[in-house]
Each structure stands twice: as structure tokens, then as C-alpha cells.
């Protein structure tokens, strides 16, 4: 009977919970580390500034995320233990903290994720644009990076319960502007590609045919999604596919 009462002592239960939490936290951290490594995260984040910063302080992105999940569980264990042991009598306060911690955890996770995605997309975009040797182009990757970061911050702030309506409106205006610019800039491309799909599917003319589009005539050399290349003895025309629909096609028979 002595054992029974001893085990029901709040302090003992609290200690057990604490020990359990420590073990669980450690295990979850290890598991996370293994899982992330197996999922190829180290390769995916390689070369991003975040990873480099992490490396310079002797850790890595995977380790930070794994550590974070451990600390999260440690935190919960400690709080639960304190609650059970009734060391403090400020129930309301603790409940709010317990409520708040998971959200903070998610927010930090979102931030880390956002930083990595932002860096990564900057890398990808600049890699993609490397062939274009124009100084102004280097602005574009930065723009992509900060756009991603902005969205990340909004999500993180919303997660911990800060009002983000104004920021959201700003985001909406920004994306709206982007869409408008995109549509205006690529209108010709969109129409041409719609026509191109028809041309590729139906093949009203194919390579080797002699055709006339508007006042340009010659032998078809290439048909792709956006343009048709026709060529005669002296000239090579690159005709946008929308012109094919506007002017119609004349097939020349000898």
C-alpha cells in the first residue's frame, strides 16, 4: 500500500511525465533527423544561404528542424509536469501558454521552411536566367525571393494570431498587378499557342509543304507551339501561329 500512495504523489507523476517527455523528445528528434535525411532534404537545401548560415554555426537545417521538434516536446513535458505537480497556481496563465506553444512551433517551422524555399527559388530562377546576359535580370531572382518571404511572414504572423489583414490586402494588390502584367505581356503568346495546339493536332500543313500565309510564302521547315517557320529561296519567315489563323493558310500545289 505504501507504493500505491507513493505513486499517487503528484511530484512522482510529474517526474515520470518529465522523464517520459525527455525520452520521447529525444527520440522524436532523432527520428525526424533520420526521416528528413532519408527524404533527401540535405541535398535539396544545399547551397541555400540558410543552410550555409547553419553550417557556419556548426549545425545544419535538418538538425535545426529536428532539434526544434525535440524542444517542442520537452517544453510540453515540462509544462505538463509543472501543472501536475501544482507547483504554481496560475492555471489560466499556463493554459494560455500551452495553447500558444504549438502555434509558435508551427510559426517557427513555417519561417524556416519559407527561408529555405525563398533561397531555393532564388537559386533556381537565377540558374534559369544565367543564359540571359543582362544586368537588370539579376533583379528577378531577388523579387521572387522576397515575394516568397513576404508570404511566409504573413503565414507565420497569422499563425501566432497577429492581425494580417493589411498585409493580405497588399499581397492581393501585388499578385493582381503581376497577373495583369503577365496577361498583357504574354497575350500574343497565349493566342499563338492556342493556334499552335490546333496546328500540331490537325496538321493542316506539315514540314515540306509549300504554303502561303498572308504575303509570305515558302516551304514549311518547322511547326512548333508558337511559330511556324517557312522558307523560300531568299528569305526565312518566322510566322507567329496567330497570324496563321488571322490570314488563313494557302497551300500551293505545283
Amino acid at each position, binding site marked *: 500500500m505504501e507504493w500505491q500512495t507513493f505513486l499517487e504523489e503528484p511530484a512522482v507523476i510529474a517526474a515520470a511525465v518529465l522523464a517520459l517527455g525527455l525520452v520521447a523528445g529525444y527520440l522524436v528528434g532523432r527520428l525526424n533527423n533520420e526521416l528528413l535525411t532519408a527524404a533527401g532534404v540535405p541535398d535539396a537545401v544545399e547551397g541555400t544561404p540558410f543552410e550555409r548560415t547553419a553550417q557556419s554555426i556548426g549545425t545544419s537545417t535538418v538538425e535545426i528542424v529536428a532539434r526544434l521538434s525535440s524542444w517542442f516536446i520537452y517544453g510540453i513535458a515540462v509544462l505538463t509536469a509543472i501543472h501536475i505537480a501544482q507547483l504554481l497556481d496560475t492555471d489560466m496563465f499556463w493554459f494560455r501558454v500551452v495553447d500558444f506553444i504549438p502555434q509558435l512551433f508551427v510559426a517557427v517551422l513555417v519561417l524556416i521552411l519559407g527561408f529555405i524555399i525563398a533561397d531555393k527559388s532564388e537559386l533556381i530562377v537565377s540558374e534559369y536566367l544565367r543564359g540571359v546576359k543582362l544586368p537588370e535580370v539579376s533583379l528577378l531572382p531577388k523579387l521572387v525571393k522576397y515575394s516568397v518571404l513576404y508570404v511566409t511572414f504573413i503565414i507565420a504572423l497569422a499563425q501566432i494570431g497577429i492581425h494580417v489583414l493589411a498585409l493580405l490586402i497588399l499581397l492581393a494588390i501585388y499578385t493582381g498587378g503581376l497577373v495583369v502584367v503577365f496577361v498583357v505581356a504574354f497575350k500574343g503568346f497565349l493566342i499563338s499557342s492556342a493556334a499552335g495546339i490546333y496546328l*500540331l493536332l490537325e*496538321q493542316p500543313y*506539315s*514540314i*515540306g*509543304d*509549300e504554303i502561303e500565309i498572308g504575303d509570305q510564302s*515558302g*516551304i*514549311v*521547315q*518547322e511547326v*512548333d507551339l508558337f511559330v511556324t*517557320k*517557312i*522558307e523560300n529561296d531568299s528569305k526565312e519567315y518566322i510566322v507567329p501561329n496567330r497570324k496563321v489563323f488571322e490570314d488563313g493558310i494557302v497551300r500551293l500545289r505545283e
Partner: protein
Amino acid sequence: MDGLDDVFGDLFSSVDGVMLFSPSGSYYERFAAVEDIDVIVVGTEDEVGAETFVELPLAFDDVADRIKFGIEGALEQEVIEDGDELACATRVFADEIDTISRVRASADDHSGIYDLFAKSRADPGVIKSVLELAIELGKKGQKGKPVGALFVVGDAGKVMNKSRPLSYNPFEKSHVHVGDPIVNVMLKEFSRLDGAFIISDAGKIVSAYRYLEPSAEGIDIPKGLGARHMAAGAVTRDTNAIAIVLSESDGLVRAFKGGELILEVDPEAY
């Protein structure tokens, strides 16, 4: 042993430039740190991010071909000049650079092997894929038997007008491009068909089963090559296309441009 440096030193003393063939990153860094010397990297890919880079379309197995191509490419890109003395460092036996060869760049020995890729109508990548395809076909044959094949690449519109179908075109209304994963198998099966494959500038396979009818008058190709090679030579003179031929009899892959034989490779060597 200090005498050895003097003797071998002749190989690289007072050269105008160094050509590194597919160097590893650290190897290149060491050269880049050396002052007063032009370093030109040659390889199938620019792995080290070098300033001056000449792209090889194939990892030529023959060292002489490899160096010849590198030099012609560098001359064409004007990174070296006619008469420059070059130390060419390349790999022969090991997986890293183990050989230095001193070569004098000469614009007279122009074989056109670089022009074949860089200055043809068709995309260099497309020519490269077709060449690889022909080499692979030559290596394996069709079901173990040697096959012949003729690919006409580029200027497809004109080639189509200078040829006629032998039968229905299996590629009609298809959108198959060389380099697509399925193509190797497909072309292997189709290679038993007679006639030529016609491929457009961008790599679309326009037709198979084509009978080429250019005029073969005045075509001068080595004696002993058959009708397939004659047709290939003739079609490249009449149009701006290039032709890649896999010979059924001797198994070699040959490339023609402007009516002339430019490149000859043995598939077994790759």
C-alpha cells in the same frame, strides 16, 4: 632525377595557352591561379564554370580526335589564334588528367568537324543526339544483326521536296523528337525499313521510308562506300542538311556535310 624536369619541361615551356580536357574542379582551380596563361576548358559539359569553354559534342574516345575538335572549336570561337602553341592536358588511361600533348594550332588543318555541330542548320543538341543514336545502333545492331541507317538532319522542308515516300510514313501526325526516351527503341525497330529518316532542325522526326533523289553528279566520296553513303553525300550538297550514316557493311558511323565526308567514328570505340 632533376634532369627529367628539363626534358619534359620542353613540352609545356613557353606555350600560349593550356587546354584542359574535362578537368576536375580542383585541378582547374590550380590552373586558374597560375598567372599569365590562358586556360581553355574543353569538355562535354562545363562542370567547373570556366571563363573560356569549348563544348565537345561527344566524349571522343580517340585522343587525337578529341584534341583536334577542341582546337578547331577554340579557333572558331577565337579564343586562340592560328599558330599558337598549346599544351593539351587530357585523360587517356585514368579517370583524371594523365597526359600532356603539345600541339600547334593551325587553321589549315580544317577538317570541319567543329562546323558540323556548331555551324549546321540543325540544333547542335539534335545532331549530337542523332550521332549518339547512330553509334548506339551500330553497337547493338537490330536483334544482334548489323543494320544500316541513314539520317538526314536539318533543312527538312527542302529535303522532303527532294525525296519521295517509299511507303506510308510511320511518323505521320506524330510528334516524336530525337532525344525522347522512347525514340531509341522505336528507331531501332524502324531501322529495318529501307530509305532515310528525315529529322527537322528542332529534332522532330518528320518521316521514315524516304527515297532521296538528289543528283549525285560530281559527288566525291571514298570508293567502296555504297548507295546509302552516295545518297547521303548528294543530299547534303543539294540542301543545307547534314547526313549521318551507319554503314551496314563495316559498321562505321559517318557524317556528311556539303557533299563531303567530315567525320568517321567506330561505334565499338565508345
